[in-house]
């Protein structure tokens, strides 16, 4: 439900420009506050502005940087696992939503493993993780032609220590978005 709030204050006229502020916060943040509309010309014939809906996503959040920091580009996997846990699915649902709102972006999903394992098996393990993410995003409506996958196995750890605290960060799939609608 969208409420339209019209100012009844005196037309201070030029003092206050029209503000249609839409805070398109990501799902991880608090629920967005109700939209605020300041309309100095309310009631004036031919004037004024009426809120008619949110600005399409992309004008404020349609950047790779926004995707990385607000949507979340990384999902983690349990040890030896390539299935998506609850936390991963939550992040991926946001990714899918973002990708649908930002149809001009394509994505490469990087699969990674921790260093506990042989080189080529870890490449295959990373590929399977990337594939699991790809499958989920497609199921959530992202076009298959916009998604590619790559595995780095254990070649590009996110954290470099050699205990579980780092291994857990390295068993991951990273969704890298880039302008261009894919193949």
């Amino acid at each position, binding site marked *: 439900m969208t409420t339209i709030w019209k100012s009844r204050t005196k037309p201070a006229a030029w003092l206050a420009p029209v503000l249609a502020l839409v805070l398109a916060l990501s799902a991880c943040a608090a629920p967005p506050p109700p939209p605020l509309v300041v309309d100095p010309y309310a009631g004036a014939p031919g004037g004024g502005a009426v809120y008619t809906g949110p600005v399409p996503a992309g004008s404020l959040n349609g950047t790779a940087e926004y995707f990385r920091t607000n949507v979340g580009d990384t999902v983690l996997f349990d040890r030896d696992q390539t299935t998506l846990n609850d936390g991963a699915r939550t992040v991926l649902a946001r990714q899918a939503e973002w990708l649908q709102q930002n149809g001009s972006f394509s994505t490469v999903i990087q699969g990674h493993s921790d260093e506990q394992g042989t080189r080529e098996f870890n*490449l295959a393990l990373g590929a399977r993780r990337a594939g699991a993410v790809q499958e989920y995003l497609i199921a959530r409506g992202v076009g298959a032609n916009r998604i590619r996958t790559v595995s780095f196995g254990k070649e590009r750890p996110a954290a*470099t220590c050699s205990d579980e605290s780092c291994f857990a960060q390295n068993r991951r799939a990273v969704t890298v978005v880039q302008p261009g609608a894919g193949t």
Partner: protein
Amino acid sequence: MVSADRVGYGPREPGRTNEQMCRPLLIALFAAATFGVAAPLPALAQEDTGPLRIEITEGVVEPMPIAVAPFFDAGGGAGMVARVQQVLTDDLTGTGLFRTIADQAQIAPPDSFDAPIAYEDWRAVNAEALVTGAVSVAGDVVTVRFRLYDVFSGQALGDGMQFDAPVDGWRRAAHKAADQVYSRLTGEAPYFDSRVVFVNETGPKDARLKRIGIMDFDGANQMWLTDDTTLVLSPKLSRDGKRLLYTSYETGFPRLMAMDIETMAEVEVPTDPQTMTFGPRFSPDGRWIIFSREQGGNTDIWQMDPSSGAARPLIEGPFIDTAPSYSPDGTRIVFESDRSGSPQLYVVSADGTGEPLRISFGQGRYGAPAWSPIGDLIAFTRQDGDRFHIGVFRPDGSEEKTLTESFLDEGPTWAPNGRVVMFTRQTPGGDGVARLHSVDVTGRNMRPVTIEGAASDPDWGPLLP
């Protein structure tokens, strides 16, 4: 100018065959490694043993004391003599099977390469074998000669031999001579005159730079085959050592690359661009390339005819199949698969027909198998908890032996004679470093390969002609 037919590595004085050769000294080299039921599991070669030294962790095999008399300069070889002798000595002692008797302990070194041997004096210092040698340089050719004597029986052990090499290839002549000594004293095939491809590593752990290099088996004569601007993995040589296959991320995605070692000309092996492909290997006859191919998250093993580019799945299913290695006769393939739930090793016929047979049943996870070039053993990586091991077993999985243990040992590759394995050992932590090590099939003689810088993914090429 020296005529081409003078330059070569062939023996000048053809030696007798092993059968003809009297071998009173033939030591029971791998007697304890003969996988007999009585052979005890050797103590593990532990990590971090400090400076180079032979690790004999079990009192069964004592290195054989041999003497290498100071080599002679037979003309123009003054600058070369000591270096040739050092390479030969290092080759022999590096096996862990021999120890040399110090020069100062030698009572009566011969006056010349052809002088008679005072066996009594060599017996007195407990030398069981004596190597003599001479080095000469004429123009751009170095000539290395050696003779080998059985001190206790007081006679030559086979004929002396002579090797010619270009001067800048002097190490190869030394390796050839050492190979003959090793072979005569052990009955094993030689392996010193061989090369290894590997991956050189620089930069921080989360942004490692990698490039492929090639070097002599002992770490000398390093040469770079790729630069470090592109991530490269898993170099593998053809059986003749002339061609190289590897995985490159030049396009941003893993792809198969092939290179002619001599010209360093590289070409991409054509594969479906919608898939990831990695880990290529040649079949022993060079006719096929087998490789790992990912599609939709699932990795299978495919086979390609490189002349036509035609490829087909060889080993497939909804599980990871990767890291294949051919048997030396090309009839079978051992590979790594998690079809049972965890990574294990399986053997299947090389045409992919029939059900893969699981051969690994020990504790933990198995991977990165390498079939020995003489066919008797398969080396592998085994992870048990947080520890990694290099091990060997028969191709049916029997008579398993654990050779090493550390935080991370992986990726064994065989010396051309199938008696020594080289592998990657990585130390833990953010500043952890990968180094190459070698270990013999008894697990007794483990040592680092002495090269500058960090290195991983060795693949040991053939004995050079």
